[in-house]
């Protein structure tokens, strides 16, 4: 049993869902994604218990001889953590869509599983070319999900989604060029060989920037973010959750896994520029979130601020920065899915995303309000939530790099509280007469799962810390040796 099984299950699940018909599609998709999570969890457990886990649990097979591409799916702390995020969130996202009366459900849920397959593949690939294929593959399902099942005016939606597609696709091409360039030097796409490519200063710079463009668009980092808010707003909730919960983590993950070890000298020399850019994004996103009148757009800008901090931490190239980034990726994945779900629930009941049209909901819904409140608190990183664990380590890593970065980046805890509580007040509190049904059982289950994760790892993050630390240390050793 090795990590390729996760991919097989997801791919097979996608096909099975596709053929199961509209009536059963959601249930079949839920079953397969849950099994995929179970397998990932079991493999993670094995990872702690077997000897030589990376060798035992990885899968490697020659695929193409020339150019040399290996089907190499590697099990290490980092890839497993990200696979866990993907497979844990997928069933939850499917669950959140249960109440939606989509047309062509089989295609919809099939594409979700296909997307999970592509994303998990991105996280697990050890071969650069394979990684690139999965990276681009994931763009196709989300493109169709957003385009076909999104909301609002069809023309505008098309415009936003196509813009997103071309933008991210174009960015990724530079990454492809970078891979091909290094391949000519190494004759292999394997990560380890790419790390040891011995590039000169100019080559490193170009390659670093090529990667940066791909990742900066995907994360997004300002000023490459203009596609984001519109797509988050117009895509169906499940699509937004896939994008914000998992897909953007592909890029954050790639900074740690590919960009920094491949171009460490350039990164070290100019890291402050990139940290500063990311930290600027934290403030920029927060202040823009304050000005939003559309709930989903507000959450989109809030997400922009949070992932900016994650990227800043990654660029510090310290253990605290890396680990904080990974932990915060996981925490943010759950909280952002929860928040978009809350927005979706309100939209289902009130048929609006405009904050001004809401209010007085708490009066009617003790359960939903409590859950939404907990998610808001996690989002503002209240201690004892998972998000605090990540944010604390990230900010500490920034403080180690430069205290001012931590002060400016730390403004997120003030601004975050500002826009989130303001939003909660306008959306939920106050007096109101309109009816609003409290959460259904299925909706409640999705919330409870998310909240349980956020609270459990907020108090006891140790298993995850132990999972990712050795791998991150290994990557840091590469970076330092090469440097």
């Amino acid at each position, binding site marked *: 049993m090795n990590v390729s099984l996760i991919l097989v299950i997801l791919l097979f699940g996608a096909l099975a869902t596709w053929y199961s018909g509209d009536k059963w599609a959601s249930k079949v998709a839920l079953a397969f994604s849950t099994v995929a999570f179970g397998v990932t969890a079991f493999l993670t457990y094995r990872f702690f218990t077997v000897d030589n886990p990376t060798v035992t649990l990885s899968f490697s097979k020659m695929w193409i001889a020339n*150019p040399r591409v290996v089907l190499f799916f590697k099990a290490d702390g980092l890839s497993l953590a990200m696979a866990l995020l993907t497979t844990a969130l997928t069933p939850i996202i499917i669950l959140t869509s249960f109440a939606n009366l989509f047309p062509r459900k089989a295609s919809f849920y099939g594409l979700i599983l296909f997307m999970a397959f592509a994303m998990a593949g991105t996280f697990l690939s050890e071969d650069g070319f394979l990684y690139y294929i999965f990276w681009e593959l994931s763009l196709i399902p989300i493109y169709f999900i957003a385009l076909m099942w999104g909301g609002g005016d069809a023309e505008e939606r098309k415009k936003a989604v196509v813009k997103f597609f*071309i933008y991210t696709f174009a960015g990724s091409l530079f990454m492809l060029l970078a891979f091909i360039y290094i391949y000519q030097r190494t004759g292999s796409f394997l990560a380890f060989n790419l790390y040891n490519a011995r590039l000169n200063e100019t080559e490193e710079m170009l390659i670093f920037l090529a990667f940066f463009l791909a990742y900066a668009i995907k994360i997004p980092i300002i000023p490459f*973010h203009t596609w984001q808010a519109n797509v988050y707003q117009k895509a169906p909730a499940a699509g937004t959750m896939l994008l914000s919960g998992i897909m953007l983590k592909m890029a954050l993950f790639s900074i740690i896994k590919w960009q920094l070890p491949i171009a460490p000298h350039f990164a070290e020399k100019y890291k402050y520029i990139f940290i500063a850019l990311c930290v600027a994004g934290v403030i920029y996103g927060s*202040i*823009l979130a304050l000005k939003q009148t559309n709930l989903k757009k507000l959450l989109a800008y809030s997400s922009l601020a949070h992932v900016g901090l994650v990227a800043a931490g990654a660029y510090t190239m310290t253990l605290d920065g890396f680990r904080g980034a990974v932990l915060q990726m996981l925490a943010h994945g759950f909280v952002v899915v929860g928040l978009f779900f809350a927005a979706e629930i309100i939209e289902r009941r009130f048929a609006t995303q405009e904050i001004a049209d809401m209010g007085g909901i708490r009066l009617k819904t003790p359960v939903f309000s409590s859950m939404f409140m907990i998610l808001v608190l996690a989002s503002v990183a*209240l*201690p004892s939530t998972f998000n605090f664990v990540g944010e604390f380590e990230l900010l500490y890593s920034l403080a180690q790099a430069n205290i001012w970065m931590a002060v400016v980046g730390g403004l997120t805890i*003030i601004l975050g509280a500002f826009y989130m*509580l303001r939003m909660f007040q306008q959306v939920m509190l106050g007096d109101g007469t309109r009816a609003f049904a409290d959460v259904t059982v299925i909706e409640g289950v999705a919330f409870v799962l998310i909240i349980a994760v956020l609270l459990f790892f907020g108090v006891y*993050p140790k298993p995850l810390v132990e999972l990712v630390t050795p791998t991150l240390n290994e990557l840091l050793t590469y970076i330092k040796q090469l440097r």
Partner: protein
Amino acid sequence: METNLALLLLFAPFAGFLINVFFGKKIGKNASGYLGTAAVAVSFVVTLFFFLQVSSTKKAISVELFEWLNLQNFTVGFNFLLDQLSLLWLMFVTGIGTLIHLYSISYMHDDENMHKFFAYLNLFVFFMLTLVMGSNLLIMFIGWEGVGLCSYLLIGFWYKNQDYNDAAKKAFIMNRIGDLGFLIGIFILAHIFHTLEYTNIRTAVENAWTIDRTWLTIAMLCLFIGACGKSAQIPLYTWLPDAMAGPTPVSALIHAATMVTAGIFMVTRLNFLFNLTPDVLEVMAIVGAITSLIAASIGLVQNDIKKVLAYSTVSQLGLMFLALGCGAYEIAVFHVITHAFFKACLFLGSGSVIHALHGEQDMRNMGGLRKVMKITFATFLISTLAISGLPPFSGFFSKDEILMTAFHHNTVLYVIGSLASIMTAFYMFRLLYLTFYKDFRGTEEQKHHLHESPGLITFPLIVLAILALVGGAISLPGASWLNEYLAPVIAKPAVHHHLGPTEYMLMGIAVVGALVGIGIAYAKYMNKGEVPPQDSEIKGVAGLLYNKYYVDEVYTAIIVKPIYAIGSFFKNVTEAAISGLVFGFGKAAVFLGKQGGAVQNGSVGFYLLIFVLGICAIVGSIFLIK
């Protein structure tokens, strides 16, 4: 055994919270109230046990659970420390907490969400216990932010009213400004010491590590900013008066007796570090003194009974920081305790009055209540005498020690503190006279319903009044039990001045000052029988004070509005510009495409196809060349 008991102490209120959240509605109002009270009472009993034990053995108890955060340079565990300082705090937090819970059973009885109220109150106690019991700065930070959350929830308890929600939000955000300072302070300390455990840091300091004083000073200043947020000091004090939007028991427990003293607790906890940074102490003394004066001056003209008490709280907290700034940690703690007694009593007393008047808070519509509300009046009188600093009431001893210390530290600060105290005596007696003396000024309807509050309300009042009366006994000049008790946790005891002529003279001045304040209040409101004018007629200096020096307006103008303006700029200008730039590239590409001519047919799918084919061609050619 000790571990289990300590966990019981900590988690009893949390269990109360959980039960009230999940079953509160089912078990009914009374059950939910008594359950919440019992949860805190359990903590009080266990605290008492530990308190007696540690008082006799003089050995701190530490409890280590499990590791929480792992960072490269340090780890943080769920560790708790029950030493003299934390137990003292626990004593009055759980003790007064129990009384206020009991009081709330009656006070909140007509509220449909009573179980929720008790759930929040229990949660608050839990976080307060975490704050106090933690053995390192980050566990304290959990409690620190946790109590801020509960404060937010309870200020906005009546969430239908958006003004209350605004007050709640303001409290949370202002606290968060302080919390950022706290976090940065923690970062620097962790960087210097590689640990956040109090005992380890103290050991490091005592073993004369070479510590970078500049960074340490910055760290302590940052922590002090945190204290300013939580303990409502300039410039972060404006949330506390607004916090009075919450139910009155909340004002008594959270916004007077316990949570707002967290800043003083933290400074006392880290006294061995603050001793190394005299500059920060000096700043603290100045900020404290000025806050006490500013807040007292605003209190002079307020007409809302709870607002007067709120500004009085800010002012008294200022005096405590003045004491801390003079390095007299024990004295600050002494005043924290006496203040907890009399201020809790005053707030609960005002709640009793508000209850009797069915929600009326404006003193202009009160008067003459001493005839009907005898117990409330008697307890209120005792507490008022205590806060005014008249002997032999508890406030006299603690306030006098602060002023004495300030006198030996810096005459100007002493004068400021004394002025604040005189003002305090004035506005407290103004409050007393307007509320309880002369004739009733409310409606006939209200007059008809006037009544003394029930036993669940008067009992806590009586207990607190007795404590306010005799509480000074824990630290009598020359024979202080408190100083001796706290000695192990205070690195450098405050200089205790022998009671010489100077000291007796200072005492005399303080008493005379208080009497002058009371005298003016008597002349104005008893002899002349004045009633404060309507809002529109408050002008001149009084108008400036009544409007709180327009500080809120200034903050809005120089901070909030600019942030929104920047937001608008980002939204309307920057975003559009960036977007335009990106589309510009797109348009340029389309333009080039047009020059290319034939392939331009307007179908995005076709573009994508060409796009992908092109990429394949590039990739393929590279491989082929290879």
